[in-house]
């Protein structure tokens, strides 16, 4: 047994409080975001959750698209009686109280649906309560299905995760929005977690001195060059942000290369390592199964998508945890 050190210096305590990432979460959190709606965030997160559950991991799927939640429909479930909405209203409830089981073994859902006056706008304190409840909920995987757009709370949910999945489709509109979303995430990250490092003043200093800054990468490079004293901490903070790219609805083989291209561009633009998780084929089976109110992987297990999603789930899954491929 390791003994806890008897006295923590105030500086250490402060550090722990400042950097949420330093306190280990009780699960592996995967956030799925994209700038644009309709690119397949809910489809991807529900499928990913399905596979992780199939692999024997306890998985919690959370619908964070608070204004327009419909994840239960993707899973072929009825509208759950409780969800984030109830959790917000009643401070006595724990996150465990609003979890509903699904037809799939190991897979649980927290719905974001609400039909009242409540429309998804939550205060910072409420947001903080929700985030820390999720952060401390003990399970294997938590998958956050985010809403479209670059609202601050969306960015915060996204940044809370250890895996940052961004869903693209091969259309310029989707690519543009996804890039915008990633930029917003980047700046949110650097400002929020960099407050300890006085990033704001430093950035102001840099912009005053007319450095040629065109991209986040230039900004990071300049910060490192100008302020070597924060270089190590900044590196640590920024290296937590590694985008994982999924290209959905591809129709040709060239689209697959586009995924790799997007990865290269992101790496170049942000100066951070990115990963291309994989591409998902366009398949009419998706909306057909949605109409049948069943999940694709249940209604159409012979779709190409089955193998493609499984490969991604395996990539994301922690190899140290038990897997059972035959359910």
């Amino acid at each position, binding site marked *: 047994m390791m003994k806890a050190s008897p006295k923590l210096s105030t500086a250490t305590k402060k550090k722990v409080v400042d950097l949420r990432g330093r306190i280990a979460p009780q699960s592996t959190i995967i956030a799925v975001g994209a700038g644009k709606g309709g690119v397949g965030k809910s489809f991807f997160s529900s499928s990913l959750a399905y596979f992780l559950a199939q692999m024997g991991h306890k998985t919690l799927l959370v619908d964070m698209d608070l204004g327009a939640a419909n994840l239960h429909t993707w899973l072929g479930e009825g509208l759950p009686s409780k969800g984030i909405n109830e959790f917000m209203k009643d401070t006595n409830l724990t996150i465990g109280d609003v979890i509903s089981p699904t037809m799939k073994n190991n897979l649980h859902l927290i719905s974001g649906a609400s039909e009242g006056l409540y429309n998804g706008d939550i205060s910072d304190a409420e947001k903080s309560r929700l985030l820390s409840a999720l952060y401390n909920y003990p399970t294997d995987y938590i998958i956050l299905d985010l809403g479209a757009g670059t609202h601050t709370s969306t960015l915060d949910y996204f940044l809370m995760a250890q895996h940052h999945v961004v869903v693209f489709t091969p259309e310029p509109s989707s*690519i543009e929005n996804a*890039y915008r979303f990633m930029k917003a995430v980047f700046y949110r990250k650097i400002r929020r977690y960099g407050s300890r490092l006085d990033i704001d003043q430093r950035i102001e200093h840099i912009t005053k001195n007319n450095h040629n800054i065109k991209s986040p990468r230039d900004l990071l490079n300049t910060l*490192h060059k100008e302020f070597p004293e924060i270089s190590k901490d900044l590196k640590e903070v*920024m290296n937590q942000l590694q985008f994982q790219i999924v290209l959905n609805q591809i129709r040709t083989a060239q689209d697959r290369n586009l995924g790799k291209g997007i990865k*290269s*561009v992101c790496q*170049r633009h942000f100066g951070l390592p990115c990963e291309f998780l994989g591409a998902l084929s366009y398949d009419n089976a998706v909306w057909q199964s949605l109409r049948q109110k069943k999940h694709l992987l249940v209604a159409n297990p012979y779709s190409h998508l089955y193998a493609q999603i499984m490969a991604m789930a395996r990539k994301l899954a922690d190899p140290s945890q038990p897997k059972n491929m035959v359910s």
Partner: protein
Amino acid sequence: MYQEEETSFYDLLEISPSAGPTEIYEAYQRARETYSPHSAAIYSMFTEEEARELLRLVDEAYSTLSNRSRKRAYDLRLGLLDDEELKNETPNAYHSHPNKSPEKQDSLVEERKVGRAEEGWTGIVKVHRKVDPLPEGQERTRFSTYTVDAQFEKDIEDVEECDGSFLQKIREYKNVPLQELSEAMKTSRSTLRALEENELDRLPVQVFTRGIVVQYCRMLGLDEHKVVAAYMTYYKSQKST
């Protein structure tokens, strides 16, 4: 990990420095596609101008990494190769045949400038050459070794006018086979034979013949100005009669 410094060509093409030619080519094709002006991947991320600049860099990266000697020079500049590695590296065919080396020293370290200076990536390559020492009284050409005959050397030095048979005599004195000479000069054996046997009708026009003699002298390590002038004097006198 997060990259601080200006990236290398390897980072640009997203390959490791140990990547082989096929890998480099594939990476190049992918990068070209990604940064081409109509690529969807750069949409809204880079301006057209930035994309063009990136494309230029990608081309430059490929032209450097696809060429063995340029790649070496570049690796050296990046500090990917050190002197130790250079020494242990398998020498190329030219260096592995000491007999074929025109150098006389036992071993020499040459500094060679490699690359195009205006592009700013000129590297200096240290070439280590090991040459076996020769016994006393022996010399070498690029093809062979031979015993020095002081009298004949003097004859060559003092030559005023000479014909093809004199050239042949020098060649045989230096133990250079016609076949090897012909391959190195990229000139057919029949032409060389015509030169040596003074069959001027079978030789090309004057200017080309002169060129052949220049090459011939260089290959044998002769004083090309003197010998060529001597031969051309003979050639012209034959043609005018």
